[in-house]
């Protein structure tokens, strides 16, 4: 079966969090990621999509792309919003930091679950968070 290489899903309401998770579970499983890696990836999706929904104050979008390297399979996920931005990125990824009175475990946790994470944010313009995970190709 041919695997589609890229795609996207909007993040506009709470229900989109589940839609994003289901979509990526499908993509990552078909691409050949192991069960635990699929769970890690989908959990990261849940955290980042929810952050857009809860914190950004704007709509957003999740884009995904499969990556291939000899013997390896990868997935890259980009979460983009046009909301208020993150004033201090270093602080935001600290475990326990939150402006919402919740646990503040999202960003620090995603960093542990994924192999790569990059955050770009500008106040009043928006936030783009890119993460990637690599696995052994089947």
């Amino acid at each position, binding site marked *: 079966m041919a695997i589609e290489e890229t795609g996207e899903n909007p993040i506009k309401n709470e229900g989109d969090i589940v839609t994003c998770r289901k979509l990526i579970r499908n993509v990552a499983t078909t691409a050949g990621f192991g069960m*635990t890696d699929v769970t890690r990836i989908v959990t990261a999706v849940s955290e980042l999509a929810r952050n857009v929904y809860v914190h950004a104050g704007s709509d957003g979008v999740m884009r995904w792309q499969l990556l291939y*390297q*000899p*013997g*390896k399979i990868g997935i890259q996920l980009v979460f983009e919003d046009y909301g208020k931005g993150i004033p201090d990125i270093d602080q935001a990824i600290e475990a326990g930091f939150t402006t919402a009175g919740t646990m503040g475990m999202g960003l620090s946790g995603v960093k542990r679950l994924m*192999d790569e994470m990059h955050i770009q944010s500008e106040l009043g313009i928006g936030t783009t968070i890119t993460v990637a995970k*690599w*696995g*052994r190709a089947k």
Partner: protein
Amino acid sequence: MNHSHSKYLSNFKNWAEQKRFLDFTEKDVEFLKKLHPFAIEYADSFVDQLYEHLLQFPDTKRFLSDEKTLNRLKLAQKAYFMDLTSGEYGEEYYQSRIKVGIAHQRIGLPPRVYMSTYCYYMQLIIPKIYGNPMFDVETANGVFLALHKIINLDQELAISSYIHAIDEVISRQTEEILEMSTPVIQIWDGVVAAPIIGMLDSGRTQQFMERLLEAIVETNSPVALIDITGVPQIDTATAQHLIDTINAVKLLGSQVIITGVRPVIAQTLVHLGIDLSGIITRPTMASGLKVALDKLNIKVMDNPRA
């Protein structure tokens, strides 16, 4: 997990660099194209001669077992021979060369055979270059050098993909050895045991954690013994990995007992300030098993007749 590229297999970008290194330029492409009409003319005869030669040696003959394979390979050779002088050396060409290397490795064709086949090829082609009335000496030299360069590029790719394929085998075997070095076994109804031999790095812990948790669920075991007698040293990272494992096991509804805590490990743990106070630890696997059976309300009695 290792995210770096295979150190042997180039990517297309590196290949362009390799061309520059060999000084393979547009001029070479032009020279190769000059050879193309002759490639078309002689392809069939060259391929026939080549296979006749290969069939004379048991070493190469065994790869040409049946008529069907032979014909398929002859066609592929002919196509390759045309490609070599087609003047198109882009990504498609590059990919096809890599595939050939991997295919050769897969059927077990030794690189020795691959290399000497090229040499035989050259013996067939050179007279057609230097004995060619259409080529003056300068052109003949240019054509010869260009051919030499493109063949060198091809060989480099094929040999690299050979090595890459072997590299893959080695890393798969390493993983299997790792798996064998941390077996997870059910030692009692409701108790699994996992002796760890060697250091726990993060890649190995992830893998170990997965297998331990799966075994716990499969055997429905409320107690898991992790024996660290075979762990030579412990550092903060290893200890953190152990603590992660213990926490994950707890989320499943099972409990870890750490056994085989040797004096040097106990000393290091305390000196590093690692707090294992919420975790049951025992000096030996046997004493750990006693605790496990106790927890499961299982009483083991001495045989009164013994």
